């Protein structure tokens, strides 16, 4: 208690809400992450606009297994498809699936955590039980089961990944909600007669925002990996559409004669995951009030 009264006095830096992004940009990892993710996303977006140098699924047998050159930046694969275009398309679908999956997981999981933590009682027990059951499955196995039961398209894959990650959001948000429901400004709002739901969305949700944001960036990088693993196992976006996992799977037998067919998608996965992790790190530092006003640590 007394600790809280000790933080204020000496020179409160008057940084207003403004500099969140600037704070991310101040940490080197945040900058590197932002650049990596930015570049890869732009490359991925090209695949949705038809601006890629080649059609990622168009076969060109005479030109198969060409090594990287000015014409084919990352060479061609065993069907003569341009590896650069396929990697770009793969990154595109990977980002799309991960973003949709994490968005679903965030919305469902955060709502679950909010409701469980704020209303307690039976709802809490029910949601807690369900998350425990979901946690008991190895994530990949769960996604695998879901992806094999339903039609195989990118959205099913996204839903499967979302089911795996939603429980994490429940866990991460419930704790802080438990302590926020007892905090004095929530009690004050209750005393003015504000409804429970209204308090939940006006006072509780915004104050767990930073926790959710950090979890989102972490989950994004895991989701990219999960998506790649699923498509490596043949449970991702169905062929011939390009996806990073299936490209790596196809390149298994070609490593010795055409290493670029594996290196390009492999490096793309690594850069994407590293980029997202670094960005997450930068965001966490920027959002953590303890790290305000200097890079101690």
């Amino acid at each position, binding site marked *: *208690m*007394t*600790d*809280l*009264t*000790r*933080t*204020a*006095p*000496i*020179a*409160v*830096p*008057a940084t*207003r*809400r403004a500099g969140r992004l600037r704070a991310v940009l101040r940490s080197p990892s945040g900058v590197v992450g932002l650049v990596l993710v930015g570049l890869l996303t732009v490359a991925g977006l090209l695949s949705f606009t038809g601006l890629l140098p080649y059609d990622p699924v168009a076969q060109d047998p005479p030109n198969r297994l060409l090594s990287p050159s000015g014409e084919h930046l990352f060479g061609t694969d065993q069907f003569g498809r341009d590896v650069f275009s396929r990697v770009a398309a793969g990154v595109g679908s990977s980002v799309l699936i991960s973003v949709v999956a994490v968005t679903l997981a965030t919305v469902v999981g955060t709502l679950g955590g909010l409701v469980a933590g704020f209303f307690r009682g039976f709802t809490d027990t029910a949601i807690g039980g369900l998350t425990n059951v979901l946690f008991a499955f190895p994530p990949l196995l769960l996604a695998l089961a879901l992806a094999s039961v339903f039609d195989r398209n990118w959205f099913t894959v996204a839903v499967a990944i979302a089911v795996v990650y939603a429980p994490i959001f429940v866990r991460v948000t419930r704790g802080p909600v438990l302590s926020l429901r007892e*905090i*004095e*400004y929530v*009690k*004050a*709002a*209750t*005393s*003015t*007669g*504000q409804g429970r739901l*209204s308090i939940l969305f006006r*006072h509780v949700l*915004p*104050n767990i925002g930073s926790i959710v944001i950090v979890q989102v960036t972490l989950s994004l990088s895991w989701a990219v990996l999960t998506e790649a693993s699923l498509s490596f196992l043949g449970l991702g976006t169905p062929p011939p559409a390009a996806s990073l996992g299936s490209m790596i799977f196809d390149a298994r037998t070609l490593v010795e004669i055409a290493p670029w067919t594996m290196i390009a998608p492999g490096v793309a996965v690594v850069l994407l995951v590293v980029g997202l992790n670094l960005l997450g790190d930068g965001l966490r530092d920027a959002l953590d009030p303890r790290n*305000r*006003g*200097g890079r*101690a640590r």
Partner: protein
Amino acid sequence: METPAPVLSIRDLSVSFRSGGVEVPAVRGVSLEVAAGRTVAVVGESGSGKSTTAAAINRLLPPGGRVTGGRILFEGRDLAELSEREMVRVRGAGIGLVPQDPMSNLNPLMRIGDQIAEALIVHGRAAGKAARARVVELLELVGIPDPARRADQYPHEFSGGMRQRALIAMGLACRPRLLIADEPTSALDVTVQRRILDQLDALTEEMGTSVVLITHDLGLAAERADTVAVMYRGEIVESGEAGRILAEPGHEYTRRLLDAAPSLSSTSLVKAAAPGPEARDLVEVRGLTKVFPVRGAGRGVTDRFTAVDGVAFTIPRGQTVSIVGESGSGKSTTANLLLGLERPTSGQVLFEGTDMAALGRRELFALRRRVQPVFQNPYASLDPRYTVARTVAEPLKVHRIGTAAERAKRVTELLDQVALPAEMAERLPHELSGGQRQRVAIARALALSPELVVLDEAVSALDVLVQAQILELLAELQRELGLSYLFISHDLAVVRMISHRVHVMREGRIVESGTPDRLFAAPESEYTRELLAAIPGAGLATA
């Protein structure tokens, strides 16, 4: 007369903190001498640099802080020149430390006895059976009953007061020549505080230990120390013999501190109820009881804990009714029951004759306009993401009062009422001081023009100067707006200043009631007498 060499001598010490690339000085040119066997108190409000000074002695400054000038001599040796290894030997063995927070300074996974023994073993004072024997002896010394059994318990099995005793035992384990006690009792109830400080006095006297006592309470400092040094904004503004500082403060700031510190001799801020027609009671509480289920010792067993036990009182219009008690007395639960945040197990809260429990949702919503709270912690009572204007306007919005423009006007009015400049409206809570935040919380409580304001330890977390201002503001608002207050506090001196009627609560029951003058002049219950005697500086005030 020959003075012996001081145990600790601080000369011209300066400490600053790096914050956002800027050096912020926290301590400036502080000089202090502690003679053998003497107690020196360092007094100041939060942020004055008193704890930083203490941390600098032990070379335990928080990250970002560093000594920028001056010397600290302990028994003639400059502590800054010692290697880290030599410093480790000084800590604990030469300089003991009793930290502030008994809740976070004990390892929850270690038995109390083992934690104290650790200090002995590290410094090679004792080991094995001898260490164990010494631990039991130490626990006995600091007044823990049944020390042999208690030594094998974990911190969660100790009450706050007992943990603080254990910390004192730890600080004194190696018979240090100097003990630094940083707000050793601020987190404790007054009666416990008094007993612990008595014990500390006796022990240090017996061992001949010098003490540096860090506190925010001038009364306590004067009562316990030989010499008092008053710190303000990183500097010692005045120091001298305890009695002299109280009697004839030389510095402007000390004088302000003394004036602001509520004591039993302070004059009341409120006028006694005017004789004549008895004011109608706004609230009547009858036989109010609240029982909480608690997890029992056995599996599946739920025990019951009676937090409030058959409490009855009334709150007349335009007056302040106070409930005083120590932690666990049920005073805050009583406040929550009146605010409708908890439902009573039995008994009634009658608001102008209507039972709150019998109200439907709509009626309860309407009633909430008439009862508003102000809570203790100025840092938790405002949503950190809401501007002042939005916070103050929120109750109006919830009750759909006025248009946006009218609400904005009302916010300006309210800020004016609590003496905050209109420019504050667009600020966020972290840009305000503790006192300003508490004013905002009061403005929010007043937004709906309530008849009753429940003040739950509303001034307890504030520094004395700020506390005095807020109390004056509350008294003034009561006169202007005819408000009734239910004032919950652990601080009898504050209660005396603001109340028309006082109820002393203990273990869920009201043990004594009366007007403040009567209650404080001639307390009837043993417990009230004990509370009064425990107020630091109580003996000095009458002198």
